């Protein structure tokens, strides 16, 4: 049993066995991160290029660190300050970077489908670090891994994704992965932020937050992506916060322990209140810690796949 793929472009089509293989490897990687010397020689001689055409803190640092923990060499590219501003095309940029003899490319781009495109024009392994509103597979994996650590089992677990589903690649990757592992998935948010025909993915829809919370064991609170909203989807942030913001008051009313995830970065006191984000329900920092382990596992499994 192994991860039989050259690229990780999304969680769509990734089997249960593959996800568990990644989780098992991530578990071993977590042990390495607890050591005094947090480094293993596994990917010595492998060069990984991080191509970030869009801003990122967590994902870029996390991939960077994951590669270094495995002793790979890393080059980092960000589009600001690069030749993109001189009009170089994506294909040319990527091909030129590959000509410097790299083995794997981690790519983030504001356009959906860029990782797929790169997988067609490059020989390297491609790992999607978020493309437009399409997928962000390693985020989906680390969210589900964090839930699995907490609950032991994903099958039958009731997970609700809350907020801006329409613009969210995190939501899509979570839905694909959770569906594969047999979770009961629901979504909740203002109708303007829920994609049309989302029911076809097999998720339940709630328009009322308290209803949604009542029917969930864990929630994944998504960021309001103001940079991706071409038109006003709701009147004010204040109204959004009133109707869909996760607050301690709301959670206390439930009389049950509910687990709260957030992929970051947080708009404090918009989609989630500061006291919840820092409180006992929150696994937000566990997600960040697990993120490095998951990315180490993905890099390890992709870069050691002999069929490549």
């Amino acid at each position, binding site marked *: *049993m*192994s991860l039989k793929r050259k690229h990780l472009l999304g969680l769509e089509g990734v089997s249960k066995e593959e996800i568990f293989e990644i989780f098992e490897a991530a578990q071993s990687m977590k042990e390495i991160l607890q*050591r*005094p010397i947090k480094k293993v020689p*596994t*990917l010595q001689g492998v060069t990984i290029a991080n191509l970030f055409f869009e801003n990122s803190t967590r994902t870029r640092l996390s991939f960077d660190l994951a590669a270094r923990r495995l002793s790979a060499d890393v080059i980092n590219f960000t589009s600001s300050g690069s030749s993109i501003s001189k009009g170089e095309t994506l294909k040319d940029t990527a091909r030129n970077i590959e000509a410097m003899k790299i083995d794997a490319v981690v790519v983030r781009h504001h356009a959906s489908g860029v990782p797929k495109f790169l997988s067609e024009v490059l020989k390297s392994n491609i790992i999607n670090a978020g493309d437009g509103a399409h997928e962000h597979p390693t985020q989906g994996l680390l969210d589900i891994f964090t839930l699995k650590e907490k609950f032991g089992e994903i099958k039958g677990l009731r997970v609700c994704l809350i907020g801006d589903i329409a613009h969210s690649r995190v939501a899509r990757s979570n839905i694909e992965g959770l569906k594969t592992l047999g979770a009961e998935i629901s979504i909740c948010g203002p109708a303007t932020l829920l994609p049309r025909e989302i029911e076809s993915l097999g998720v339940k829809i709630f328009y009322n937050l308290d209803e949604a919370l009542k029917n969930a064991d864990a929630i994944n609170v998504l960021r309001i992506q103001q940079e991706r909203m071409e038109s006003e989807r709701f009147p004010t942030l204040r109204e959004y916060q009133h109707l869909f913001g996760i607050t301690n008051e709301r959670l206390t009313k439930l009389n049950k322990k509910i687990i709260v995830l957030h992929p970051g970065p947080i708009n404090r006191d918009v989609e989630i209140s500061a006291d919840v984000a820092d409180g006992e329900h929150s696994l937000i920092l566990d997600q960040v810690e697990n993120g490095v382990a998951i990315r180490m596992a993905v890099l390890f499994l992709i*870069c050691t796949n*002999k069929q490549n």
Partner: protein
Amino acid sequence: MKKPILKNINADGENFSTILDSISFDKTLKRISHEIIEKKSDSDTLAVIGICTRGETLAKRITENLKSLTQKEIPFGILDITLYRDDVRTSLNQPHLKRTEIYFDINNKKIILVDDVLFTGRTIQAALNALRDLGRAKSIELCVLIDRGHREIPIKADYVGKNIATSKKDSIIVKVKEIDGEDIVILKNER
């Protein structure tokens, strides 16, 4: 008294010999445990680490033996060397990661490193590199159930259950009760 080695030939003309049966298997582990105690009179800093997967089982049994011989707690750990293998990107199969579980501080411990078969020595080299990343042990000694020769790097065992002469193409099959349902070591001659 020396036991006769039992030979069997199966339908494919492959030649099987039993190197250790369940009784001699157990006796061998007991003998090794005694040797360790004899050599390491100060058992306070002793610790046993087994290499996944068969080495782990053998190490666990040796630890139990040492505990009953010394009446002391002996720390026990499991080492997975997959991430340290020098062929991790060149061998045929995609490696499957197992778990390293060493929950004690190895600094200043006298480590007994246990594996089932000593062959090229590369596994042990990887294990030594892995241990170095976990701290500075006082000493590391190697204990193997079978030494079959054909070293590719200069590594030598301190405690050996049984030395056997093999050809490079032979294979040694070690089975243990905990995983395979029986304790046995078989030498398979390839024709």
